């Protein structure tokens, strides 16, 4: 286990390193006059030069990258103009556009995305696994076919269509829910929930289809296994077989996949964040890419990448925990 984790940490560091190099390289060749965008539309050439120097844009790209690495390891000092401030390690630099520390910016966006993802996660597990179990329980009957088609429809509808429909129906037409506007949990838990309800559902409806299918197929697979036959042959009722044995077979894959999705969703909910105007990581990333705000892009890519890598590792560990037969390698 220790060996496994060490290898994973090593792999993760490599992936993050490669990601940052890649982003630097890509932005180096991509068009976009960073200094001009950062300075403002009507800056003079001299002013742009000053901004450029201040942002170290005149350094060769490898020097910029080296500086970035130094910041991560040792932190950086910077001038606010009136004083020298310190950006502690790991310092991911500053936004070209708003001067904000990237780490601060990420810390501000993280709870937003975490709120979105966590709520949606809970919903999609409930809806997905519930539907899956139900469709196995009712297999061969009409209700199973209805459920199958519903999950298929869920998969087939792009999230922005679902989201739009939800807004139209619940905010516009019925006016049951507020037009989503992010309210921090710490500020008002109730409003937090009401405002996030639609985004949660939009994400969850899409994701739950996958879980319904996975739950269903895992359960059916387990039902076809020999040990189920054993328990039938020992007089265990069908309900207990489904609830105890077949469902247990679905636990490992569902947990592993949800860990994976949970992590991926930190950077993957772009559409939902955009559609509902949730100021999360992914939306910030889109904005940053557009404004060629390299430090923010790198920072966000690293954080999102970190979550993906973490999710992969956690998925593997959870899978092994849920299914002890699996050996981590």
């Amino acid at each position, binding site marked *: 286990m220790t060996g496994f984790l060490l290898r994973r940490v090593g792999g993760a560091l490599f992936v993050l390193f490669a990601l940052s190099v890649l982003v630097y390289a890509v932005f180096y060749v991509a068009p976009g006059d960073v200094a001009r965008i950062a300075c403002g539309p009507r800056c003079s050439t001299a002013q742009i030069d000053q901004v450029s120097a201040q942002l170290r844009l005149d350094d060769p790209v490898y020097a910029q990258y080296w500086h970035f690495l130094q910041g991560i390891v040792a932190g950086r000092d910077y001038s606010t103009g009136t004083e020298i401030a310190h950006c502690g390690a790991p310092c991911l630099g500053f936004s070209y556009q708003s001067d904000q520390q990237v780490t601060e910016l990420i810390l501000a966006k993280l709870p937003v995305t975490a709120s979105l993802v966590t709520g949606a996660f809970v919903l999609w597990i409930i809806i997905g696994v519930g539907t899956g179990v139900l469709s196995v329980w009712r297999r061969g009957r009409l209700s199973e076919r209805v459920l199958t088609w519903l999950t298929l429809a869920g998969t087939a509808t792009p999230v922005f269509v679902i989201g739009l429909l939800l807004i139209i129906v619940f905010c516009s037409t019925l006016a049951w829910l507020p037009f989503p506007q992010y309210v921090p949990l710490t500020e008002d838990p109730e409003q937090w929930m009401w405002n996030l309800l639609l985004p949660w559902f939009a994400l969850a409806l899409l994701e739950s289809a996958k879980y319904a299918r996975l739950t269903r197929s895992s359960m059916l697979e387990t039902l076809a296994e020999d040990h189920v036959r*054993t328990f039938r*042959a*020992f*007089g*265990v009722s069908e309900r207990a077989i489904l609830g105890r044995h077949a469902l*247990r077979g679905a636990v490992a894959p569902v947990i592993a996949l949800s860990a994976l999705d949970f992590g991926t969703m930190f950077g993957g909910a772009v559409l939902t964040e955009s559609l509902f105007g949730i100021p999360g990581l992914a939306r910030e990333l889109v904005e940053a890419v557009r404004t060629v705000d390299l430090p923010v892009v790198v920072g966000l890519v690293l954080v999102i990448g970190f979550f993906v890598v973490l999710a992969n590792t956690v998925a593997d560990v959870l899978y092994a925990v849920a299914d*002890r037969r699996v050996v981590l390698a």
Partner: protein
Amino acid sequence: MSLIEVTDLSVDFGSVRAVDKVSFTLEPGAALGVVGESGSGKSTVAYALLGLHRGTGASVAGAVEVAGVDVAAASDPELRALRGGKAAMVFQDPLSALDPYYAVGDQIAEVYRVHRKVSRRAARARAVEVLDRVGIADAARRSRSRPHEFSGGMRQRALIAMALACEPRVLIADEPTTALDVTVQAQILDLLHELRAETGLGLLLVTHDVGVAAESVDDILVMRHGKVVERGPVGEVLAAPSQAYTRELLAAVPRIEGAGRASVPGPRFEAEAAAPAGAGEPVLEARDLRKVYGKRAKAFTAVDGVSVAVHAGETLGIVGESGSGKTTLGRMLVGLLAPDGGSVSRTAEVQMVFQDPGSALNPRRSIGESIADPLRARGEKDEGRIRARVDELLVRVGLEAAHYDRYPHEFSGGQRQRVCIARALAPSPRLIVCDEPVSSLDVTTQAQVLDLLDELRRELGLALVFIAHDLAVVRQVSDRVAVMRRGRVVESGTVAEVYGAPQDPYTKQLLAAVPALDPSAAALRRSERRELAEVA
């Protein structure tokens, strides 16, 4: 009243009739063996006893009464009460027969609570009790282990424990030892024997292995193609079979004692006399072979310093239980695996025949193409010559030239193995390594393939390395034998030496574990085993 009363039982899967008008009875405390080759319908009969075909689409006709319950008429709750409560079943593959996710003790407790209204704690206690009964040491602790933490034999014991938990009146065992090593098999059979003696349990034993039946039952029922061929007390049927099929079946069973199969006449021994073992020039020599899987703490030495030599025209048998390293050794001999230590020198072409003819042939290519592979790989371009050679090989292994364009799934297991042999012969090798070539085949088929190999050996002057777990089979085909255990050769010598006067205790144990066809011999063996165990 009989414990089990089956009258005119027929089972159809769609248009296929798996069981055709089978009738038999089992009295309390008696043991009945149902013996047959694959496809004989023997397991289907066993399943019908507990009504396990219900809801699967199979249609069941005839009357089945088990422990006073009319299985066909019983309601679902009644059936559930029968299953495990009055009649319990033990399945073939103990690994897959238990839920991998729960502790063994919990699974037994779960079953117990289905039939007895007791607390969770009491059920757990009962689980430990029965585990202890079936000989699981430190049962309280082991009951918390999951199935994969058990060895194969322990799992089968656990399954038997589960069956015993509710004190059923009859135990139905479906190939209970088939997936086990021969020594473990002997232990399980001994356990069943003891339990029967102790509790007066009725036993229905379904098996393909006549030897296993001979060891364990009073009466025997031979089945073929869903029909009963012959039935009677086990001693009578085995000693003097009245039906041709039974005779054929018995004749095909390789024997550990005596002169081998009656159907194989002398020539082989003549050849042996003419060219004693080791006299031909060596075609393969392996020195001090080692193979290690995994790294550091998880390292596992599969083969540990094995040296063998094979000479032209001779058959070297390599025998061992699962995990002994015999397959790894075989693969190193042909060069499919690179050894981690030692060397292999081959003086001529070496080919291989694999265990599972199902996976040894590419399902997407015609068998002719598969056989032609080695020819083409060696640069043969002339299609006519290739075709001629393949046709010749097909005929030689007992198939037809017209089979060239057929695909593997169109053949039976035995035929597929013939195709594999033809492919191995194609490049005219001097040595063929056969890795369990007959272990997945029924006894009668097995005998035919063994005959073919022997013919080829004599005709072409081939050398064979014959790897198998089955001591009887190895004895029958080999000139010299090496016994492997945990990656090492513990004993080697001529067949007569090793089988006649084994030196190593492990070899002795192995030989004692082989079931005997003669029930009286079986009893003798059983006491032998007990002695060996006491000595150990």
